[in-house]
């Protein structure tokens, strides 16, 4: 079990709020790139596949940079 954990945990103590935002910016960058390649808007699946993400996960990540009140910026502190 310790090994499974260690394997998952190379990301150390990176906070979700920051890294999910990074993911979201990557999604937007890939979208722009694919737009040029395809000559049309890529779908969420196409973008997510290139980033090795699930489309559902990508949809949630995009939330981190679109909303004024973000689920990634908690108000509890």
């Amino acid at each position, binding site marked *: 079990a310790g090994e499974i954990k260690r394997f998952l945990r190379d990301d150390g103590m990176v906070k979700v709020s920051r890294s999910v935002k990074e993911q979201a910016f990557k999604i937007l960058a890939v979208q722009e790139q694919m737009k040029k390649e395809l000559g049309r808007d*890529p779908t969420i699946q196409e973008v997510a596949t290139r980033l090795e993400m699930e489309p*559902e996960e990508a949809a949630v990540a995009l939330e981190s940079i679109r909303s004024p009140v*973000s689920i990634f910026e908690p108000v509890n502190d």
Partner: protein
Amino acid sequence: MKNEMRLEILSISENEAFARAVAGAFAAQLNPTLEELADIKMAVSEAVTNAIIHGYECDGKRMVEIHGVIRGSVVAFEVIDQGCGIDDVDQAREPFYTSKPDLERSGMGFTVMETFMDKVEVTSGKDKGTKVFMLKAIKAAKERETSDHE
């Protein structure tokens, strides 16, 4: 494709973003473009915000329901509250109409829903709660591919 989900969230403003994320993750199953996804999230978000702010006046106790349905290439959402309801739905749907000008609301919530979705239906009555139904057809991925080669 065929799918269904039901979500209940506490009526606190923090859950507007959560509801938007859930609606986005659900709609993502139909493989929309990022723009279509943003449209859907924005429309659902306006309905959820209305349920929380107007329907329940942010009491933080009652639950807002969000039903999602996928049938073929259509995604539909129903946003339901058991709150104060709307007296005059036609008036409420008018652009810029708001009953809470003091809250710096824009009065554009229903207009946003109508703009970004293909259909919006509002069922409401004073003290009977409010149900907002909306749907959007997503161009199937196959269709999209075909039009690539036109």
